[in-house]
Protein backbone atom coordinates (compact mmCIF):
# COMPACT_ATOMS: atom_id res chain seq x y z
CA UNK A 1 0.00 0.00 0.00
CA UNK A 2 2.62 2.51 1.17
CA UNK A 3 4.84 1.37 -1.65
CA UNK A 4 2.18 2.07 -4.22
CA UNK A 5 1.63 5.60 -2.83
CA UNK A 6 5.35 6.27 -3.32
CA UNK A 7 5.13 4.85 -6.77
CA UNK A 8 2.25 7.16 -7.58
CA UNK A 9 4.03 10.25 -6.29
CA UNK A 10 7.17 9.32 -8.19
CA UNK A 11 5.23 8.77 -11.33
CA UNK A 12 3.09 11.92 -11.25
CA UNK A 13 5.21 14.55 -9.59
CA UNK A 14 7.37 14.90 -12.63
CA UNK A 15 7.73 18.43 -13.94
CA UNK A 16 6.79 17.80 -17.58
CA UNK A 17 3.68 15.85 -16.59
CA UNK A 18 2.43 18.57 -14.21
CA UNK A 19 3.07 21.20 -16.85
CA UNK A 20 1.24 19.21 -19.49
CA UNK A 21 -1.63 18.57 -17.08
CA UNK A 22 -2.11 22.20 -16.05
CA UNK A 23 -1.36 23.92 -19.33
CA UNK A 24 -2.92 21.51 -21.80
CA UNK A 25 -3.72 23.21 -25.09
CA UNK A 26 -5.26 21.95 -28.26
CA UNK A 27 -3.70 22.97 -31.52
CA UNK A 28 -5.21 26.19 -32.94
CA UNK A 29 -8.05 25.65 -35.40
CA UNK A 30 -6.69 26.34 -38.83
CA UNK A 31 -8.17 25.49 -42.17
CA UNK A 32 -5.73 23.12 -43.87
CA UNK A 33 -4.39 24.36 -47.18
CA UNK A 34 -5.99 21.45 -49.05
CA UNK A 35 -9.53 22.38 -47.83
CA UNK A 36 -11.96 24.13 -50.14
CA UNK A 37 -13.18 27.57 -49.09
CA UNK A 38 -16.87 28.33 -48.62
CA UNK A 39 -18.61 28.93 -51.95
CA UNK A 40 -18.27 32.52 -53.10
CA UNK A 41 -20.22 34.52 -55.66
CA UNK A 42 -18.90 34.93 -59.16
CA UNK A 43 -20.01 37.83 -61.30
CA UNK A 44 -22.60 35.74 -63.12
CA UNK A 45 -26.28 36.46 -62.76
CA UNK A 46 -28.44 34.25 -60.51
CA UNK A 47 -31.70 33.16 -62.15
CA UNK A 48 -33.06 31.89 -58.80
CA UNK A 49 -33.66 28.42 -60.17
CA UNK A 50 -32.99 27.08 -56.64
CA UNK A 51 -30.88 24.15 -57.90
CA UNK A 52 -28.33 24.99 -55.20
CA UNK A 53 -30.99 24.69 -52.50
CA UNK A 54 -32.19 21.46 -54.03
CA UNK A 55 -28.79 19.75 -53.96
CA UNK A 56 -27.57 21.10 -50.59
CA UNK A 57 -27.33 18.29 -48.02
CA UNK A 58 -26.97 20.57 -44.96
CA UNK A 59 -30.18 22.03 -43.45
CA UNK A 60 -30.17 25.82 -43.40
CA UNK A 61 -26.84 26.18 -45.24
CA UNK A 62 -27.98 27.99 -48.38
CA UNK A 63 -30.78 30.36 -49.25
CA UNK A 64 -31.62 32.30 -52.38
CA UNK A 65 -32.81 35.78 -51.46
CA UNK A 66 -33.99 38.83 -53.30
CA UNK A 67 -32.33 42.14 -52.51
CA UNK A 68 -32.97 45.32 -54.43
CA UNK A 69 -34.53 43.49 -57.34
CA UNK A 70 -31.71 40.98 -57.87
CA UNK A 71 -31.44 37.47 -56.55
CA UNK A 72 -28.38 35.81 -55.13
CA UNK A 73 -27.53 32.78 -53.04
CA UNK A 74 -26.51 33.31 -49.41
CA UNK A 75 -24.28 30.77 -47.66
CA UNK A 76 -24.67 30.36 -43.90
CA UNK A 77 -21.23 29.42 -42.62
CA UNK A 78 -22.33 27.71 -39.43
CA UNK A 79 -24.35 25.24 -41.48
CA UNK A 80 -22.30 24.84 -44.68
CA UNK A 81 -20.23 21.66 -45.02
CA UNK A 82 -18.19 23.00 -47.96
CA UNK A 83 -19.14 19.91 -49.95
CA UNK A 84 -19.26 22.03 -53.09
CA UNK A 85 -22.40 20.41 -54.48
CA UNK A 86 -24.13 23.78 -54.95
CA UNK A 87 -21.19 25.02 -57.02
CA UNK A 88 -21.31 21.90 -59.14
CA UNK A 89 -25.08 21.91 -59.58
CA UNK A 90 -25.60 25.60 -60.43
CA UNK A 91 -26.31 25.75 -64.17
CA UNK A 92 -25.29 29.41 -64.39
CA UNK A 93 -21.94 29.16 -62.59
CA UNK A 94 -23.00 31.75 -60.00
CA UNK A 95 -20.95 30.12 -57.25
CA UNK A 96 -17.29 29.14 -57.15
CA UNK A 97 -15.27 27.16 -54.67
CA UNK A 98 -11.78 25.66 -55.03
CA UNK A 99 -11.19 23.98 -58.38
CA UNK A 100 -14.72 22.60 -58.82
CA UNK A 101 -15.66 24.68 -61.85
CA UNK A 102 -12.36 23.85 -63.52
CA UNK A 103 -12.79 20.10 -63.02
CA UNK A 104 -16.38 20.31 -64.15
CA UNK A 105 -15.33 21.89 -67.40
CA UNK A 106 -12.55 19.36 -67.95
CA UNK A 107 -14.68 16.32 -67.15
CA UNK A 108 -17.89 17.74 -68.67
CA UNK A 109 -19.98 16.67 -65.67
CA UNK A 110 -23.42 17.84 -64.73
CA UNK A 111 -26.48 16.84 -62.72
CA UNK A 112 -29.95 15.91 -63.91
CA UNK A 113 -32.74 15.82 -61.34
CA UNK A 114 -36.40 14.88 -61.13
CA UNK A 115 -38.76 15.52 -58.24
CA UNK A 116 -41.88 14.02 -56.85
CA UNK A 117 -44.14 15.88 -54.41
CA UNK A 118 -45.90 13.62 -51.97
CA UNK A 119 -48.67 14.85 -49.65
CA UNK A 120 -50.17 12.89 -46.80
CA UNK A 121 -53.81 13.94 -47.12
CA UNK A 122 -54.66 12.45 -43.73
CA UNK A 123 -52.38 14.85 -41.85
CA UNK A 124 -52.52 17.83 -44.26
CA UNK A 125 -54.66 20.64 -42.79
CA UNK A 126 -54.91 22.60 -46.05
CA UNK A 127 -53.44 25.61 -44.22
CA UNK A 128 -51.68 26.66 -47.42
CA UNK A 129 -48.28 27.37 -45.82
CA UNK A 130 -46.49 25.29 -48.48
CA UNK A 131 -48.35 26.84 -51.43
CA UNK A 132 -47.73 30.39 -50.17
CA UNK A 133 -44.05 29.92 -49.34
CA UNK A 134 -43.15 27.99 -52.52
CA UNK A 135 -40.81 30.26 -54.53
CA UNK A 136 -41.98 28.87 -57.87
CA UNK A 137 -45.63 29.46 -56.93
CA UNK A 138 -44.72 33.06 -56.08
CA UNK A 139 -43.17 33.51 -59.48
CA UNK A 140 -46.07 31.98 -61.36
CA UNK A 141 -48.71 33.87 -59.42
CA UNK A 142 -47.77 36.85 -57.21
CA UNK A 143 -51.28 36.77 -55.69
CA UNK A 144 -50.47 33.38 -54.23
CA UNK A 145 -47.45 34.83 -52.45
CA UNK A 146 -49.52 37.39 -50.62
CA UNK A 147 -52.11 35.22 -49.00
CA UNK A 148 -52.77 31.89 -50.65
CA UNK A 149 -55.34 32.79 -53.28
CA UNK A 150 -54.28 31.59 -56.70
CA UNK A 151 -55.63 33.39 -59.72
CA UNK A 152 -54.31 30.93 -62.28
CA UNK A 153 -53.49 27.28 -62.78
CA UNK A 154 -49.81 27.83 -63.56
CA UNK A 155 -48.69 27.20 -59.97
CA UNK A 156 -47.08 23.95 -58.80
CA UNK A 157 -49.70 23.37 -56.14
CA UNK A 158 -52.73 24.95 -54.52
CA UNK A 159 -55.65 24.12 -52.26
CA UNK A 160 -58.42 23.09 -54.59
CA UNK A 161 -61.70 21.30 -53.88
CA UNK A 162 -60.78 20.90 -50.24
CA UNK A 163 -57.54 19.12 -51.06
CA UNK A 164 -53.91 19.96 -51.53
CA UNK A 165 -53.62 19.58 -55.31
CA UNK A 166 -50.37 19.29 -57.24
CA UNK A 167 -50.95 20.81 -60.69
CA UNK A 168 -47.49 21.28 -62.22
CA UNK A 169 -45.11 18.87 -60.55
CA UNK A 170 -42.66 19.33 -63.44
CA UNK A 171 -42.11 22.95 -62.34
CA UNK A 172 -40.83 21.85 -58.92
CA UNK A 173 -37.17 22.70 -58.47
CA UNK A 174 -36.73 20.61 -55.34
CA UNK A 175 -35.82 23.47 -53.02
CA UNK A 176 -37.89 21.98 -50.16
CA UNK A 177 -39.12 25.33 -48.86
CA UNK A 178 -42.54 23.67 -48.55
CA UNK A 179 -41.14 21.02 -46.22
CA UNK A 180 -39.85 23.72 -43.90
CA UNK A 181 -43.21 25.52 -43.88
CA UNK A 182 -45.25 22.42 -43.11
CA UNK A 183 -45.91 22.07 -39.38
CA UNK A 184 -46.47 18.33 -39.39
CA UNK A 185 -44.36 16.98 -42.25
CA UNK A 186 -47.40 16.28 -44.42
CA UNK A 187 -45.51 17.30 -47.57
CA UNK A 188 -42.34 15.63 -48.81
CA UNK A 189 -40.32 16.26 -51.91
CA UNK A 190 -38.51 13.20 -53.17
CA UNK A 191 -35.43 14.07 -55.23
CA UNK A 192 -33.77 11.78 -57.73
CA UNK A 193 -30.48 13.28 -58.84
CA UNK A 194 -28.32 11.68 -61.50
CA UNK A 195 -24.68 12.54 -62.15
CA UNK A 196 -23.94 12.82 -65.88
CA UNK A 197 -20.64 12.90 -67.72
CA UNK A 198 -19.97 13.96 -71.26
CA UNK A 199 -23.57 15.04 -71.84
CA UNK A 200 -24.42 18.59 -72.79
CA UNK A 201 -26.19 20.40 -70.00
CA UNK A 202 -29.91 20.97 -70.20
Amino acid sequence: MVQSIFWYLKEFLRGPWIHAFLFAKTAPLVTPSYFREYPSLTEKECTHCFTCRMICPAPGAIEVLQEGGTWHPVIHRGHCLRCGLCVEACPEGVLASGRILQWQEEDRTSFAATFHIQVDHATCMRCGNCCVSCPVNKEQDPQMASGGHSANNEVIMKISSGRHTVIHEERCVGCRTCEGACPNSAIRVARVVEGLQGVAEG
Partner: protein
Amino acid sequence: MIVRDVICPFCACLCDDLDVHVEDGRVTGVDNACDLGSHKFMTDHRMKGPVRRTASGWEEIPLEEAIRETAELLEAAERPLLYGWSGTCGEAQSAGVHLAELVGGVIDATTSVCHGPSILAIQEVGHPGCTLGQVKNRADVVVYWGCNPQHAHPRHLSRYTTYADGFFVRNAFKERKVIVADIRGTDSTNLADEFIRLQPGGDYAVLGALRAIVRGKGDVVPPEVAGVSREQLYRIADLCKTAKYGAFFFGMGLTQTAGKYKNIRNAIELVDELSRHTKWTLTPMRGHFNVYGFNEVCTWMTGYPYAVDFARGMAFYNPGETTAVDILARKECDMCLVVASDPAAHFPAEAVEHLASIPVVQLDPFPNLTTAFARIQIPVAVSGIDADGTAYRMDGVPLRLHRVLDRGYPDDAGILLEITRRITGGGSR
Protein backbone atom coordinates in the same frame (compact mmCIF):
# COMPACT_ATOMS: atom_id res chain seq x y z
CA MET B 1 -71.43 27.22 -60.81
CA ILE B 2 -68.45 28.70 -59.03
CA VAL B 3 -69.13 31.45 -56.49
CA ARG B 4 -65.96 33.52 -56.11
CA ASP B 5 -64.53 35.53 -53.22
CA VAL B 6 -66.73 33.87 -50.62
CA ILE B 7 -66.03 34.67 -46.96
CA CYS B 8 -65.49 31.64 -44.77
CA PRO B 9 -67.80 31.59 -41.72
CA PHE B 10 -65.71 29.31 -39.55
CA CYS B 11 -63.04 31.10 -37.54
CA ALA B 12 -62.39 34.78 -36.95
CA CYS B 13 -59.77 34.89 -39.73
CA LEU B 14 -62.79 35.30 -42.04
CA CYS B 15 -60.72 34.33 -45.10
CA ASP B 16 -62.41 36.19 -47.96
CA ASP B 17 -60.87 34.43 -50.94
CA LEU B 18 -62.76 31.15 -51.15
CA ASP B 19 -64.12 29.79 -54.41
CA VAL B 20 -67.15 27.61 -53.74
CA HIS B 21 -68.41 25.13 -56.32
CA VAL B 22 -72.20 24.78 -56.19
CA GLU B 23 -74.19 22.21 -58.12
CA ASP B 24 -77.88 21.34 -57.72
CA GLY B 25 -78.22 23.22 -54.45
CA ARG B 26 -75.22 21.45 -52.93
CA VAL B 27 -71.65 22.53 -52.31
CA THR B 28 -69.42 20.15 -54.22
CA GLY B 29 -66.03 21.67 -53.53
CA VAL B 30 -64.24 24.56 -51.87
CA ASP B 31 -60.99 26.09 -53.15
CA ASN B 32 -58.43 27.86 -50.94
CA ALA B 33 -60.18 27.01 -47.66
CA CYS B 34 -58.50 25.13 -44.83
CA ASP B 35 -59.86 21.83 -43.57
CA LEU B 36 -62.12 23.45 -40.97
CA GLY B 37 -63.66 25.90 -43.41
CA SER B 38 -64.22 23.46 -46.22
CA HIS B 39 -65.92 20.97 -43.85
CA LYS B 40 -68.38 23.64 -42.76
CA PHE B 41 -69.33 24.26 -46.38
CA MET B 42 -69.39 20.60 -47.37
CA THR B 43 -71.29 19.06 -44.48
CA ASP B 44 -74.77 17.72 -45.14
CA HIS B 45 -75.37 16.97 -41.49
CA ARG B 46 -78.19 19.51 -41.16
CA MET B 47 -81.50 19.05 -39.37
CA LYS B 48 -84.57 19.20 -41.60
CA GLY B 49 -87.03 21.15 -39.47
CA PRO B 50 -87.89 22.20 -35.91
CA VAL B 51 -88.22 19.39 -33.37
CA ARG B 52 -89.72 19.19 -29.88
CA ARG B 53 -88.87 16.69 -27.18
CA THR B 54 -91.61 14.23 -26.18
CA ALA B 55 -91.68 11.73 -23.34
CA SER B 56 -90.08 9.06 -25.49
CA GLY B 57 -88.17 10.96 -28.18
CA TRP B 58 -88.62 13.79 -30.66
CA GLU B 59 -91.49 15.04 -32.77
CA GLU B 60 -91.32 17.32 -35.76
CA ILE B 61 -93.30 20.53 -35.34
CA PRO B 62 -94.11 23.42 -37.68
CA LEU B 63 -91.91 26.50 -37.44
CA GLU B 64 -94.80 28.71 -36.26
CA GLU B 65 -95.48 26.39 -33.35
CA ALA B 66 -91.80 26.31 -32.39
CA ILE B 67 -91.68 30.11 -32.44
CA ARG B 68 -94.93 30.43 -30.47
CA GLU B 69 -93.76 28.01 -27.77
CA THR B 70 -90.36 29.72 -27.52
CA ALA B 71 -92.07 33.08 -27.10
CA GLU B 72 -94.32 31.63 -24.37
CA LEU B 73 -91.36 30.10 -22.54
CA LEU B 74 -89.45 33.39 -22.69
CA GLU B 75 -92.46 35.37 -21.46
CA ALA B 76 -93.14 32.95 -18.61
CA ALA B 77 -89.53 32.86 -17.45
CA GLU B 78 -88.46 34.86 -14.39
CA ARG B 79 -84.80 35.06 -15.36
CA PRO B 80 -84.19 33.94 -18.92
CA LEU B 81 -80.65 33.61 -20.27
CA LEU B 82 -79.95 34.27 -23.94
CA TYR B 83 -76.61 32.69 -24.63
CA GLY B 84 -74.31 31.98 -27.57
CA TRP B 85 -74.33 34.40 -30.52
CA SER B 86 -70.78 33.91 -31.74
CA GLY B 87 -71.71 31.68 -34.68
CA THR B 88 -74.27 34.00 -36.20
CA CYS B 89 -74.33 37.38 -37.91
CA GLY B 90 -74.59 40.86 -36.41
CA GLU B 91 -78.23 41.27 -37.48
CA ALA B 92 -79.28 38.27 -35.36
CA GLN B 93 -77.15 39.52 -32.46
CA SER B 94 -78.87 42.88 -32.66
CA ALA B 95 -82.29 41.19 -32.63
CA GLY B 96 -81.09 39.12 -29.66
CA VAL B 97 -80.14 42.18 -27.61
CA HIS B 98 -83.58 43.74 -28.30
CA LEU B 99 -85.25 40.48 -27.25
CA ALA B 100 -83.20 40.27 -24.04
CA GLU B 101 -84.21 43.82 -23.15
CA LEU B 102 -87.83 43.06 -23.90
CA VAL B 103 -88.00 39.98 -21.65
CA GLY B 104 -85.72 41.47 -18.97
CA GLY B 105 -83.24 38.66 -19.37
CA VAL B 106 -79.51 38.22 -19.36
CA ILE B 107 -77.66 38.15 -22.67
CA ASP B 108 -74.19 36.66 -22.78
CA ALA B 109 -71.92 35.36 -25.52
CA THR B 110 -69.25 32.67 -25.68
CA THR B 111 -66.86 35.58 -25.06
CA SER B 112 -67.33 35.05 -21.34
CA VAL B 113 -65.62 31.64 -21.54
CA CYS B 114 -62.91 32.62 -24.06
CA HIS B 115 -61.67 36.19 -24.53
CA GLY B 116 -63.79 37.80 -21.80
CA PRO B 117 -60.65 38.39 -19.70
CA SER B 118 -59.02 40.10 -22.72
CA ILE B 119 -61.87 42.61 -22.80
CA LEU B 120 -61.55 43.25 -19.05
CA ALA B 121 -57.85 43.97 -19.51
CA ILE B 122 -58.53 46.18 -22.53
CA GLN B 123 -61.07 48.13 -20.46
CA GLU B 124 -58.31 48.74 -17.92
CA VAL B 125 -55.33 49.61 -20.09
CA GLY B 126 -56.56 49.97 -23.66
CA HIS B 127 -56.03 48.04 -26.86
CA PRO B 128 -52.93 48.71 -28.98
CA GLY B 129 -54.50 47.00 -31.99
CA CYS B 130 -54.17 47.03 -35.75
CA THR B 131 -55.69 45.34 -38.76
CA LEU B 132 -54.28 42.06 -40.01
CA GLY B 133 -53.24 43.84 -43.21
CA GLN B 134 -50.78 45.93 -41.20
CA VAL B 135 -49.32 42.74 -39.71
CA LYS B 136 -49.00 41.16 -43.14
CA ASN B 137 -47.36 44.14 -44.79
CA ARG B 138 -45.09 45.26 -41.95
CA ALA B 139 -44.49 42.77 -39.14
CA ASP B 140 -41.06 41.16 -39.00
CA VAL B 141 -41.55 39.63 -35.55
CA VAL B 142 -44.73 37.73 -34.73
CA VAL B 143 -45.54 36.35 -31.28
CA TYR B 144 -48.17 33.68 -30.69
CA TRP B 145 -48.75 33.34 -26.96
CA GLY B 146 -50.89 30.52 -25.56
CA CYS B 147 -52.47 29.61 -28.86
CA ASN B 148 -52.05 27.08 -31.63
CA PRO B 149 -53.02 28.92 -34.80
CA GLN B 150 -51.94 26.03 -36.97
CA HIS B 151 -54.89 24.03 -35.61
CA ALA B 152 -57.42 26.70 -34.58
CA HIS B 153 -56.83 29.28 -37.36
CA PRO B 154 -54.98 27.19 -39.98
CA ARG B 155 -54.61 29.96 -42.58
CA HIS B 156 -53.50 32.66 -40.15
CA LEU B 157 -49.82 32.05 -40.89
CA SER B 158 -50.17 31.75 -44.64
CA ARG B 159 -52.57 34.68 -45.09
CA TYR B 160 -51.54 37.26 -42.52
CA THR B 161 -48.28 36.56 -40.76
CA THR B 162 -45.42 34.21 -41.37
CA TYR B 163 -45.49 33.09 -44.98
CA ALA B 164 -47.42 35.78 -46.84
CA ASP B 165 -45.14 38.29 -48.58
CA GLY B 166 -45.97 41.83 -47.53
CA PHE B 167 -45.30 45.25 -49.00
CA PHE B 168 -42.36 45.84 -46.65
CA VAL B 169 -41.52 42.16 -46.12
CA ARG B 170 -40.36 40.74 -49.42
CA ASN B 171 -38.79 37.45 -48.34
CA ALA B 172 -41.45 36.69 -45.74
CA PHE B 173 -40.35 33.16 -44.84
CA LYS B 174 -36.84 34.44 -44.14
CA GLU B 175 -37.42 37.93 -42.74
CA ARG B 176 -40.18 37.17 -40.28
CA LYS B 177 -39.25 35.72 -36.92
CA VAL B 178 -41.94 33.71 -35.16
CA ILE B 179 -41.98 33.36 -31.39
CA VAL B 180 -44.42 30.86 -29.90
CA ALA B 181 -45.08 30.58 -26.16
CA ASP B 182 -46.86 27.48 -24.95
CA ILE B 183 -46.69 24.90 -22.19
CA ARG B 184 -46.20 22.09 -24.69
CA GLY B 185 -44.91 21.52 -28.19
CA THR B 186 -47.59 21.86 -30.89
CA ASP B 187 -47.71 22.07 -34.66
CA SER B 188 -47.34 25.84 -34.30
CA THR B 189 -44.24 25.55 -32.12
CA ASN B 190 -42.76 23.35 -34.88
CA LEU B 191 -42.69 26.46 -37.08
CA ALA B 192 -41.29 28.79 -34.42
CA ASP B 193 -37.85 30.40 -34.48
CA GLU B 194 -38.10 30.74 -30.69
CA PHE B 195 -40.25 28.41 -28.62
CA ILE B 196 -40.84 29.69 -25.09
CA ARG B 197 -41.81 26.57 -23.20
CA LEU B 198 -43.24 27.78 -19.93
CA GLN B 199 -44.63 25.95 -16.93
CA PRO B 200 -48.45 25.92 -16.70
CA GLY B 201 -49.64 29.13 -15.05
CA GLY B 202 -46.28 30.85 -15.54
CA ASP B 203 -47.46 33.37 -18.17
CA TYR B 204 -47.75 36.34 -15.80
CA ALA B 205 -44.26 35.82 -14.41
CA VAL B 206 -42.64 35.39 -17.85
CA LEU B 207 -44.40 38.46 -19.28
CA GLY B 208 -43.36 40.39 -16.18
CA ALA B 209 -39.74 39.29 -16.60
CA LEU B 210 -39.78 40.37 -20.25
CA ARG B 211 -41.19 43.74 -19.24
CA ALA B 212 -38.40 44.16 -16.69
CA ILE B 213 -35.73 43.31 -19.27
CA VAL B 214 -37.21 45.66 -21.88
CA ARG B 215 -37.40 48.39 -19.22
CA GLY B 216 -33.68 47.89 -18.51
CA LYS B 217 -34.21 46.27 -15.10
CA GLY B 218 -33.05 42.82 -16.19
CA ASP B 219 -30.86 42.44 -13.10
CA VAL B 220 -33.95 41.60 -11.01
CA VAL B 221 -34.78 38.59 -13.19
CA PRO B 222 -33.78 35.25 -11.60
CA PRO B 223 -31.86 32.66 -13.68
CA GLU B 224 -35.10 30.86 -14.46
CA VAL B 225 -38.68 32.17 -14.66
CA ALA B 226 -41.47 29.56 -14.84
CA GLY B 227 -39.22 27.14 -16.69
CA VAL B 228 -37.79 29.76 -19.09
CA SER B 229 -34.09 30.56 -18.80
CA ARG B 230 -32.91 34.15 -18.35
CA GLU B 231 -30.73 33.78 -21.45
CA GLN B 232 -33.75 32.96 -23.59
CA LEU B 233 -35.71 35.86 -22.09
CA TYR B 234 -32.88 38.26 -22.94
CA ARG B 235 -32.69 36.83 -26.45
CA ILE B 236 -36.43 37.28 -26.94
CA ALA B 237 -36.42 40.79 -25.47
CA ASP B 238 -33.62 41.73 -27.89
CA LEU B 239 -35.48 40.20 -30.83
CA CYS B 240 -38.63 42.14 -29.87
CA LYS B 241 -36.80 45.43 -29.31
CA THR B 242 -34.92 45.29 -32.58
CA ALA B 243 -38.03 44.43 -34.62
CA LYS B 244 -39.15 46.95 -37.20
CA TYR B 245 -42.76 46.08 -36.40
CA GLY B 246 -43.96 43.44 -33.97
CA ALA B 247 -47.34 41.75 -33.71
CA PHE B 248 -48.46 39.98 -30.54
CA PHE B 249 -51.25 37.41 -30.88
CA PHE B 250 -52.61 35.51 -27.91
CA GLY B 251 -55.18 32.82 -27.28
CA MET B 252 -56.94 31.06 -24.48
CA GLY B 253 -53.69 29.67 -23.13
CA LEU B 254 -53.23 33.20 -21.80
CA THR B 255 -56.83 34.26 -21.08
CA GLN B 256 -58.08 31.19 -19.26
CA THR B 257 -55.07 30.17 -17.16
CA ALA B 258 -54.12 31.38 -13.69
CA GLY B 259 -54.03 35.15 -13.64
CA LYS B 260 -56.69 35.48 -16.36
CA TYR B 261 -57.23 39.16 -17.24
CA LYS B 262 -54.09 40.17 -15.33
CA ASN B 263 -52.11 38.09 -17.84
CA ILE B 264 -53.57 40.09 -20.70
CA ARG B 265 -52.97 43.33 -18.86
CA ASN B 266 -49.34 42.32 -18.49
CA ALA B 267 -49.15 41.44 -22.19
CA ILE B 268 -50.66 44.80 -23.19
CA GLU B 269 -48.20 46.57 -20.92
CA LEU B 270 -45.32 44.59 -22.45
CA VAL B 271 -46.50 45.76 -25.88
CA ASP B 272 -46.69 49.30 -24.48
CA GLU B 273 -43.14 48.96 -23.13
CA LEU B 274 -41.85 47.62 -26.46
CA SER B 275 -43.52 50.48 -28.30
CA ARG B 276 -41.08 52.84 -26.55
CA HIS B 277 -38.36 51.15 -28.65
CA THR B 278 -40.21 50.24 -31.85
CA LYS B 279 -43.76 49.63 -33.05
CA TRP B 280 -45.75 46.78 -31.50
CA THR B 281 -49.42 45.80 -31.64
CA LEU B 282 -51.60 43.22 -29.93
CA THR B 283 -54.52 41.18 -31.29
CA PRO B 284 -56.57 38.49 -29.54
CA MET B 285 -56.97 35.30 -31.59
CA ARG B 286 -60.76 35.30 -31.52
CA GLY B 287 -62.27 31.88 -32.18
CA HIS B 288 -65.78 31.81 -33.68
CA PHE B 289 -66.20 33.76 -36.89
CA ASN B 290 -68.33 36.50 -35.35
CA VAL B 291 -67.58 36.42 -31.63
CA TYR B 292 -65.94 39.81 -31.99
CA GLY B 293 -69.14 40.96 -33.69
CA PHE B 294 -71.22 40.23 -30.60
CA ASN B 295 -68.95 42.43 -28.50
CA GLU B 296 -69.31 45.23 -31.05
CA VAL B 297 -73.08 44.89 -31.41
CA CYS B 298 -73.65 44.58 -27.67
CA THR B 299 -71.39 47.55 -26.95
CA TRP B 300 -73.09 49.91 -29.35
CA MET B 301 -76.54 48.80 -28.17
CA THR B 302 -76.04 48.56 -24.40
CA GLY B 303 -72.68 50.13 -23.66
CA TYR B 304 -71.22 46.81 -22.52
CA PRO B 305 -69.51 44.07 -24.56
CA TYR B 306 -71.08 40.91 -23.07
CA ALA B 307 -72.81 39.54 -19.94
CA VAL B 308 -75.53 42.21 -19.89
CA ASP B 309 -78.40 41.83 -17.43
CA PHE B 310 -81.67 43.63 -18.23
CA ALA B 311 -83.53 42.43 -15.09
CA ARG B 312 -83.47 45.97 -13.65
CA GLY B 313 -84.94 47.42 -16.82
CA MET B 314 -81.59 48.85 -17.78
CA ALA B 315 -78.29 47.39 -18.90
CA PHE B 316 -76.20 46.07 -16.01
CA TYR B 317 -72.79 44.48 -16.55
CA ASN B 318 -70.79 42.63 -13.94
CA PRO B 319 -68.68 39.74 -15.26
CA GLY B 320 -68.51 37.01 -12.62
CA GLU B 321 -72.10 37.74 -11.67
CA THR B 322 -73.96 38.27 -14.93
CA THR B 323 -71.90 35.81 -16.99
CA ALA B 324 -73.67 32.66 -18.20
CA VAL B 325 -71.62 30.11 -16.26
CA ASP B 326 -72.14 31.96 -12.97
CA ILE B 327 -75.88 32.42 -13.48
CA LEU B 328 -76.27 28.72 -14.25
CA ALA B 329 -74.01 27.62 -11.41
CA ARG B 330 -76.07 29.72 -8.96
CA LYS B 331 -79.20 28.05 -10.41
CA GLU B 332 -80.78 31.45 -11.00
CA CYS B 333 -81.72 30.98 -14.59
CA ASP B 334 -85.09 29.29 -15.32
CA MET B 335 -85.11 29.27 -19.13
CA CYS B 336 -82.33 29.40 -21.67
CA LEU B 337 -82.33 30.38 -25.33
CA VAL B 338 -79.15 29.07 -26.94
CA VAL B 339 -78.26 30.62 -30.27
CA ALA B 340 -75.43 29.42 -32.50
CA SER B 341 -73.27 27.78 -29.85
CA ASP B 342 -72.90 24.64 -27.79
CA PRO B 343 -72.71 25.35 -24.04
CA ALA B 344 -73.14 21.68 -23.10
CA ALA B 345 -69.81 20.90 -24.75
CA HIS B 346 -67.86 23.68 -23.04
CA PHE B 347 -69.41 24.65 -19.70
CA PRO B 348 -68.40 23.20 -16.33
CA ALA B 349 -70.45 20.18 -15.20
CA GLU B 350 -72.28 22.15 -12.51
CA ALA B 351 -73.54 24.72 -15.02
CA VAL B 352 -74.54 22.04 -17.53
CA GLU B 353 -76.44 20.12 -14.84
CA HIS B 354 -78.62 23.14 -14.18
CA LEU B 355 -78.99 23.83 -17.87
CA ALA B 356 -80.29 20.28 -18.34
CA SER B 357 -82.93 20.83 -15.66
CA ILE B 358 -84.55 23.94 -17.23
CA PRO B 359 -86.35 24.47 -20.55
CA VAL B 360 -83.81 25.08 -23.30
CA VAL B 361 -84.61 26.27 -26.81
CA GLN B 362 -81.80 26.04 -29.31
CA LEU B 363 -81.39 27.87 -32.60
CA ASP B 364 -78.66 26.01 -34.44
CA PRO B 365 -78.24 24.51 -37.91
CA PHE B 366 -76.64 21.37 -36.53
CA PRO B 367 -77.46 18.94 -33.73
CA ASN B 368 -74.81 19.16 -31.01
CA LEU B 369 -74.33 18.21 -27.34
CA THR B 370 -76.82 20.85 -26.17
CA THR B 371 -79.43 19.13 -28.36
CA ALA B 372 -79.21 16.23 -25.91
CA PHE B 373 -81.37 18.14 -23.38
CA ALA B 374 -82.96 20.89 -25.46
CA ARG B 375 -86.75 21.07 -25.35
CA ILE B 376 -86.99 22.59 -28.81
CA GLN B 377 -84.43 22.95 -31.55
CA ILE B 378 -85.02 25.15 -34.56
CA PRO B 379 -82.58 24.57 -37.42
CA VAL B 380 -81.61 27.83 -39.09
CA ALA B 381 -79.63 28.96 -42.09
CA VAL B 382 -75.86 29.25 -41.70
CA SER B 383 -74.66 32.85 -42.05
CA GLY B 384 -72.28 33.04 -44.97
CA ILE B 385 -73.49 29.78 -46.53
CA ASP B 386 -77.26 30.06 -46.93
CA ALA B 387 -77.87 33.45 -45.33
CA ASP B 388 -76.44 36.96 -45.66
CA GLY B 389 -75.07 38.80 -42.67
CA THR B 390 -72.32 40.96 -41.23
CA ALA B 391 -69.41 39.52 -39.27
CA TYR B 392 -66.37 41.06 -37.57
CA ARG B 393 -62.89 39.67 -38.16
CA MET B 394 -60.57 39.15 -35.19
CA ASP B 395 -59.00 42.57 -35.83
CA GLY B 396 -62.40 44.30 -35.74
CA VAL B 397 -62.93 44.68 -39.48
CA PRO B 398 -66.60 44.15 -40.41
CA LEU B 399 -67.16 42.05 -43.51
CA ARG B 400 -70.40 41.38 -45.35
CA LEU B 401 -71.12 37.67 -45.76
CA HIS B 402 -73.18 36.63 -48.77
CA ARG B 403 -75.17 33.48 -49.22
CA VAL B 404 -73.82 31.03 -51.78
CA LEU B 405 -76.95 28.90 -52.04
CA ASP B 406 -80.50 28.74 -50.77
CA ARG B 407 -81.56 25.72 -48.81
CA GLY B 408 -84.86 27.13 -47.63
CA TYR B 409 -83.96 27.50 -43.97
CA PRO B 410 -85.09 30.62 -42.05
CA ASP B 411 -82.29 32.81 -40.67
CA ASP B 412 -81.90 33.41 -36.94
CA ALA B 413 -82.49 37.15 -37.21
CA GLY B 414 -85.91 36.50 -38.77
CA ILE B 415 -86.89 33.98 -36.11
CA LEU B 416 -85.75 36.26 -33.27
CA LEU B 417 -87.71 39.17 -34.73
CA GLU B 418 -90.77 36.94 -35.01
CA ILE B 419 -90.41 35.85 -31.37
CA THR B 420 -90.13 39.53 -30.40
CA ARG B 421 -93.21 40.36 -32.48
CA ARG B 422 -95.22 37.66 -30.71
CA ILE B 423 -94.16 38.86 -27.27
CA THR B 424 -95.04 42.47 -28.06
CA GLY B 425 -98.29 41.32 -29.60
CA GLY B 426 -97.40 42.56 -33.06
CA GLY B 427 -97.07 46.21 -32.10
CA SER B 428 -93.85 48.11 -32.56
CA ARG B 429 -91.85 48.68 -29.42
